[in-house]
Every structure is written in structure tokens, then in C-alpha cells.
């Protein structure tokens, strides 16, 4: 699975430019699953109950007879990553930019960004260095408009980028053994988990929609419409969460290496009690270590799906991650494998939600 994670994180895909990620994911979809792209560009991958191939439309067979009937379940991981967008090229060829998603100033300093390129995964495009105007007060974090990108140009004429072009962080994937580091782990790791679930999942009584959404980082914009189209009975996002295990960090009960985290609450959503219990009891019966997560600020696609149409019982299975929204996000490979195992087990069986 590490190669898949490497390929996914190395793709170019800031919000609004997810096509390269989508194509890579599409090529990885195993037989028996059918994919289509919705109006905003999210990739909806479907398998009808049984596991014999996904013909049929949106409502590919829910219910059935008896108490152990299958459910229509939607899982969502987002394809997009944060980045920057060119707002101006000045007379000397320096590039001013705005944020695409939640970009913070500190991780930018001295970093490199890369614009879309000719490779199939979107890489190989022009790169630049992030610079900063002189600061009068070194004790304060400078505002975003004090930064610029140096593309090595000396005028607008020889600058390789234009207003509106977007770039992502330019940093390579590192395998530290148990720990993996890359840009865009948020949320390519979630995409990797969903693909691995597809590969490992045998028969299931459930009607499954595994969705790779667009534009999560700029406001959960792809998830709501995708959820509207699918009308799931249960929804789960698979996304990163923060940890409380680095020096002098804000307190949080989640750590790298202690397993995937079942989200209880985050900045946008209270997870459905029945969905939480479903995940906890699955973890327990399959002996998969998992953690309980409360995230103070930040949220996931599940927040948007939860309030689509007449509402959806929703929750989230999180991959703990350090240095989120920096070019070097770190996850624990054991947590990732635990997440896959837990989801495969949960989706293989009938689901009864309480509360």
C-alpha cells in the first residue's frame, strides 16, 4: 500500500484541479466496481450488494427481507489538497498569491511550490520559492500578503505562470519505516484507504458508494452535492485528524500509532451516536486498536453530507496526522492499515444503527 500512498501524494491536485488525482484513482479501481464523475467533478464508485459487480443506478438495492438487510452506505475521502493561487505578477516577475484552502504562513517560509505540469500525475510543472518582504516586527507572524513566489523570472514576460494558476507544495514522499511523510496526506491517505478497502472487501450485503470528493479544503463543496445524489442511509468520511503527541502541543487525546480514531465531535459535526457505536463495536470484535477523537477546530466532508436532503446519520474514521497543512504531514502506517481493516470488517456485515 505504500507505493499507492506515494503515487497519490505526489499527484498535483489543489482544490478545483483534482483531475490528475481522479484519473490515478480511476485506474486503481478493482473489477466489480463502477465509477462515474458527478457535476462538480467528484468520483463516485459504486458496488451493489453481494459484490458481484455494480450495475444499476443510484438506488442499487437497499433493504430486502429480514432484519439483517443491507444499507446504502457512503464513504468519502477528498482528492483535493491545499495550495496557492496566483493573484498578480508584478513588474519584476515576482508572483503574489492567495490561499486555496487553509494555508498558514509559517509552513510557507522558504518552501517550494509547484504549478501544474505535463506529467500524467500533474507534476513536472514550473516551481518557485516562497519569499517574504522585510518584517518590522519579528515577533509577529507576517500577514499572507507579505509573501510572494519567486519563479526565477525578471519580468511578467518571462514568468511561466499567470493570474489564476494554482500550485501545491513541492515536497517528496518519505518512508521512515513505521511512519510516512508527504505533502497532501490530507486527504490522499483517505483516498488510499478507500482504494485498499475496495481491493480487500469480499462480499457485502450493503450497497456501497465510495466517493472521492472535490473541493473539501475550500468549504466541503463537493461532498454535499455528492451526498445529495446518492442519498445514503449512513455516511462516513475518512480524513486526517490532529494529534496531541508532539512537544508542548495543544492537548488532544489522539496519538500516532494507537490506531485509527473514531470521531466523536469536531468543529463542524457531532457524529451520530449509532455510527460511532457501529465503528467502536466493530473495532472491538475484530480486535483492532482504535482511539476516541474530539477535534476542536477543523472538520470533514461528513459535516456537509450529514445535513444533505433530510439528513444522514454520519460519522468519520480518522487517520491521525502530525504537521497537518504543512508540506510534511506524517501518519503511522499501522494506523492506516488498522483503518482499512476496520472498514472492511464494518462494511462486510449488516449494520444496525442504534440511537
Amino acid at each position, binding site marked *: 500500500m505504500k507505493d499507492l500512498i506515494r503515487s497519490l501524494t505526489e499527484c498535483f491536485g489543489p482544490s*478545483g484541479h483534482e483531475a490528475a488525482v481522479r484519473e490515478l484513482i480511476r485506474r486503481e479501481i478493482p473489477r466489480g466496481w463502477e465509477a462515474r464523475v458527478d457535476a*462538480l467533478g467528484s468520483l463516485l464508485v459504486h458496488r451493489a450488494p453481494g459484490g458481484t459487480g455494480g450495475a444499476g443506478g443510484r438506488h442499487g438495492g437497499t433493504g430486502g427481507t429480514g432484519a439483517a438487510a443491507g444499507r446504502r452506505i457512503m464513504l468519502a475521502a477528498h482528492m483535493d489538497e491545499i495550495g496557492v493561487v496566483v493573484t498578480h505578477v508584478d513588474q519584476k516577475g515576482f508572483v503574489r498569491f492567495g490561499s*486555496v484552502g487553509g494555508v498558514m504562513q509559517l509552513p510557507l517560509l522558504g518552501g517550494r511550490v509547484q504549478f501544474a505540469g505535463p506529467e500524467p500525475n500533474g507534476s513536472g510543472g514550473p516551481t518557485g520559492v516562497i519569499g517574504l518582504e522585510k518584517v518590522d516586527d519579528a515577533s509577529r507572524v507576517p500577514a499572507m500578503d507579505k509573501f510572494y513566489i519567486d519563479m526565477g523570472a525578471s519580468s511578467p514576460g518571462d514568468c511561466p505562470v499567470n493570474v*489564476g494558476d494554482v500550485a501545491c507544495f513541492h515536497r517528496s514522499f518519505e518512508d521512515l519505516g513505521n511512519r510516512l511523510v508527504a505533502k497532501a496526506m490530507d486527504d490522499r491517505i483517505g483516498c488510499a484507504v478507500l482504494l485498499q478497502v475496495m481491493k480487500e472487501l469480499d462480499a457485502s450485503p450493503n450497497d456501497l458508494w465510495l466517493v472521492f470528493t472535490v473541493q473539501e479544503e475550500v468549504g466541503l463543496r463537493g461532498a454535499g452535492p455528492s451526498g445529495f445524489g446518492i442519498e445514503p442511509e449512513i455516511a462516513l468520511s475518512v480524513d486526517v485528524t490532529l494529534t496531541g503527541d508532539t512537544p508542548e502541543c495543544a492537548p488532544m487525546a489522539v496519538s500516532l500509532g494507537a490506531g485509527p480514531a473514531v470521531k466523536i465531535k469536531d468543529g463542524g459535526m457531532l457524529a451520530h451516536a449509532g455510527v460511532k457505536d457501529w465503528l467502536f463495536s466493530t473495532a472491538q470484535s475484530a480486535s483492532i486498536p482504535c482511539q476516541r477523537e474530539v477535534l476542536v477546530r477543523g472538520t470533514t466532508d461528513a459535516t456537509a453530507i450529514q445535513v444533505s436532503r433530510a439528513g444522514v446519520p454520519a460519522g468519520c474514521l480518522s487517520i491521525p496526522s502530525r504537521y497537518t497543512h504543512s508540506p510534511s504531514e506524517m501518519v503511522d502506517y499501522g494506523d492506516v492499515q488498522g483503518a482499512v481493516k476496520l472498514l472492511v470488517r464494518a462494511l462486510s456485515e449488516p449494520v444496525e444503527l442504534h440511537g
Partner: protein
Amino acid sequence: MLLQRLSEANGVSGREEAVRAILLEEIRGRVDSCRVDRMGNLIALKKGSGGSALRVLVAAHMDEVGLVITGAEDSGVLRFATVGGIDERVLPARMVWIGERRVPGVIGMKPVHLLDKGERDRVPEARQLYIDVGASGKAEAEKLAGKGETVVFATEYRTLGSPAGTGAGGDAAAGAAAASGPGAAAGGARIVQGKAFDDRAGCALLAALLTERFPFDLVAAFTVQEEVGLRGAQVAAWAEKPDAAVVLECTGANEVPSRRDLSPSTRLGAGVSITIRDASFIADPRLVQLFASTAREKNIPHQYKQPNIGGTDAGAIHRVREGVPSITLAVPARYIHSPAALMDLSDFEAAAVLVREGLERLPRAFPG
């Protein structure tokens, strides 16, 4: 002239009736049907001539930012709150018209002689200001303006000269620069001044567009309450279920002189503005490509709005139901959301041509 009538009408968010009446009168002979929905959106259908099964929504909002009367004081002055995004710095000393009767008033505050140093350095908040209609007491004030009545800036529409000044007395260098700028016509730019070009300009463009018939069904939505949260557009898009949406707007051109080499969001005279992404949505790349290539091939002056700034009805429309690929085209104007905006009619005309030519080609962008 339609743009003038629209600009001078009072249509603060939530009270768009006067604007809607003008538009209904203007378009009713051009469309196959129209209706007013529960929120007050004016929605009209122009059926396609055939050849495309697409359903395309084109939207412009009828409402403008303004004020609302919150009550009268014993002294006879009226208190108010803002409706939509208004920079409070533009308020003191403004002349206004209140309500359907267009009662004239002026926004007053303490005279400068009576301000202490702290007050002089601070921007007064809306609740410290008041509207003076010349009433001698509360009863008289309430007769002139009731709670909930809306208030607009008292700006008449007019045509101005070239922005660089005219004739021999003007600054020659600036005049030359303006005359050689991208949009300047042979006789100088045609600049008009008025209130509420955001978005009466869009409404005027949409009304004119309805004289055309396209291969696909065109749903025109003159929306309400954009300025207070894109509210009408969400409802209209929900009901009409379009396959794609084009929003016609008026967008800010902040070409103020600056020491720093930073681009303005848009420029007057540089043509119709195409939004790639703003704070409310990311335009569908196929639609950006469609309108950009149409503009290039037909030599229509155009520019790209600086990314990440502002929001439009597209922000609400694109995420309705299962999503709607959307784009915003806009006419630049200086000083939007203030008493008197400036717009270049050559940009307005470029917008009219681009939206028409682009829509003609739209079925190619969404085949099948």
C-alpha cells in the same frame, strides 16, 4: 434607458419590488413564461430553438446594499442599520431616499467642532449615525419613514467625461495613458456614474439577452437577497434544476493609486471580467475555457478577476442538489457598495457580446 431606470430604483435586499416591476415590464414580451417565486425571484423561461437538451440558468440579482430604518427618536432623527456590506466610512453626510415615497434625508453626525480627539480618529459606527429628514419630533419623523422601510443613496444616473480629465487643462500624460488604454474608444471612454450598478448592470444585461433565442432552454433568474447571503439564488437554482449556470454581475475595480505593485481586482476599460475563482466558488474549468476562448476568437476585450475576492450567486448555485457547473461574468465598476459607482459602457457592451457569443457555443462545452 433601462440601465438608468434600474439604477435609480429602490431595491434594497428584501424589498426588490420596484426593480422587479421594471424588469417584468421589460421582458414579458420576450419570454415564453415567467413567474415570481415565494421569495420574490423573477424567473423567466426562454425555450430553446432545438438542438440542445441542456437547461441553462442565467442569473443576476435585483437587490442592492442599503440601509433599513430601525426607529425614530424623540428629537426627530431616524436610526438605521446597514443591509448588506456597506463600509461605514461612506455614510456620514450622505443624501438618501427613504422608502417607496423616496423621502429625502441626510445622514448626520456630530459636527466636527464638537468631536473630541478620539472621536475624530475613529470611523463612526452605523448606530452612532442617524438620518435627518427635517422632522421636528418623533411623530413627524414616523409619518415620513416607518420602521423597516429601506433606504438608498440619493444618486442620479449620469454620464461622465473621460476619467483623465478633458481638454487642454487636463494632465497630458494621464490623458495619453487613458486614451491608449485597452478599452478607450476613439472619442474617450464612456463612463457612467450611478448607484447599484451592482447588480443592475447584470439585470440590464440579462434583460437584453432575452431578446435572443438559443438552441437550449434558457432560464433567466432575477434573484433577490444576494447581498445578504445569496439567498434567492439558492432557491431559484433548486427549483429550476439547471445543467449549467452563468451569473452576470458587477464587480469591484479597485484601481486606487498605490505605491505597491499589486494588481487591482479588475480595471475599467479592460473589458468584461471572467471569474476563475472567488471566495464563494471555483468556476467550472470548461466554462472558463469556453468564455475565454470565445473572447479571444471574437476579439472581445476581457480580463480575469483577481482570484479569491468576493462572492456571487454562483457560490450558492453551484452547490445546489447534485451540483451545477457555474461561472460568473462581470462588468467592472469602481466604488461599488458606495453612493456612486463608475462603470465604463464599453466594458458593459463587451459583457453583452461575450455572454451571447459564449452561450451560442455552450452546447459544445457540455456535449451529450
